[in-house]
């Protein structure tokens, strides 16, 4: 059973994660806008770089490890 301190810390963690998520997406939108201006409809962009895919999978790995940690610590 999680303690009161851990319960409060968990709520704070959720709030910070949500804040960071919202901030990142809004920042991207403000920098990039709606679509690629000056690019014709249907123009083909190159395929995703393998390094970017590996980076994304790495982020997923860290995330799943974090969830498992949350379950173990909060047991």
């Amino acid at each position, binding site marked *: 059973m999680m303690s009161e301190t851990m319960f409060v810390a968990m709520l704070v963690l959720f709030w910070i994660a949500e804040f960071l998520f*919202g901030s990142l997406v809004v920042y991207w939108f403000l920098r990039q806008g709606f679509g690629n201006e000056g690019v014709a409809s249907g123009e083909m*962009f190159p395929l995703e770089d393998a390094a970017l895919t590996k980076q994304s999978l790495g982020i997923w790995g860290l995330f799943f490890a974090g969830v498992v940690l*949350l379950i173990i610590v*909060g047991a």
Partner: protein
Amino acid sequence: MINTGVGYSIIGLWGILMIGIAYFIFRRQNVVDTKEFITAGGRAQVGLTTASFAVTWMWAGDILGVPEYVGFVGVSGIWMYAGPAVLSSFIVIPFALRMRELFPQGLTYSEYFIKRFGKRAHLAVVFVILYTMVLGGVIQLYVGGVVIGSLAGIDATIVMALLMTVIGIYILLGGLWGSMTTDFVQFVSAIALTLVFAPLLVFTVGGPSVVYQDMVTNLGDQSATFLSMANFAPIEDFFLPYALGLGVWGVVSLSTWQRIFAVRRDKTSRFLTVAGIGVFATIAMYSLIGFVGLAALPDVAPGAIAIEALGLLPGWATVVFMLVALMVLGSSTDSYLTAIASLFSRDIYFRQLKPDASDKQQLRVARIASLAFAAVIFVATELALDSVSFIQLLLIGGIGSTALVGPFALSLFWSQTSSSGFITGVVVSQIVTISLLVVSFEVAAIPGLPALKLWEIMLVGHLTSTALTGVVSLVRPDDFDFEEIAQQAVAADGGDEQ
């Protein structure tokens, strides 16, 4: 509850705002051809697409569903609910990367099946996607009617009719561009909801420490179980059916694929990663409503926790909350409606009924379909409202995905996957799972078929579809050349050319 007049005013304000935004983007992005209407021309930026994808996954149902999960199982309800939703964004990545390599010209992902297997397999896929997407729209509208109707004291049927009218109009105008742009506004509103109103609710009842202590007092002997993240006992009822159904829903959902085809090809995995993980944080924040319910409303049933707990907010906050709930609801429902309109125009009208249809004709059909299916979703929700519970609807929603995920994966990565194998896998799996559902939900008895738990039905669906596709393809193999698809491009009129 707020004054009915205020409720109508908020719905009116929301409607004007959304239609205004859709009109703005319709003019700005020049939405006058099918490719712009269905996939935003494949040039949408990562920020816009991430927001759109995330808010589409932040179902209005989460506002009811997450507190209900917390009410039933405690803190572990957070990962049991959020895990499958997030998993979907992860599992779809290899499908998305492969499809964008093989089928870069796609407008709807279902069109891939006509290239890979021909018209009969395509028809089977269209059927599964169509009912899955209509069911998705029904789930959203169901919650909208209940939550907004309860907060505003307006009859749920009237709320649903108003919502579908507004959404139908703004999708008719802007297609996917309209959906994604309104999604962005809705995303910001949803984040504001969770960052401001969920903590406000906690402090309304005394703050996090008081919530914790009151939960311990109210739960008594059960507090050790409810306040443990490792409460695995309810996993069969609350996690597995969701994981096996909605956990792979993203692979089947046309609204997911529209966003995959809309974003730049070189950013595909990035937007799926950020949006998927972000959804976990949002769902976790909704759990605060459930904790407040357990602390302040010990006699309320889990299914009513969200509505009762939100009633604790001060009057002004309820008004703002209702506006935000409308935003979250609109984002998901409009995504399903855009997807259905696109499916009807491209896959049914153009691919199956009128292959020589011009781009203008396809666009007109897509726009008419957006209004027609708004009406279909409304009628279906009205029928479901009195006969099915929300959780039942939510979990059944994943049945369609059990027929498609395995065969789809085989078709993408195994050249011997044949049309007969694919069709057999999809059709037999659907017949088996629907029959098992009928028996297990005690709608009717079918001799020889046992009643199973929902997660077992989902598992049987996955195994049947994947195994049958594999075995029949081994017996009657294809030798498909994937390069054939990749070498094709879509002509300006929406047809195909080499």
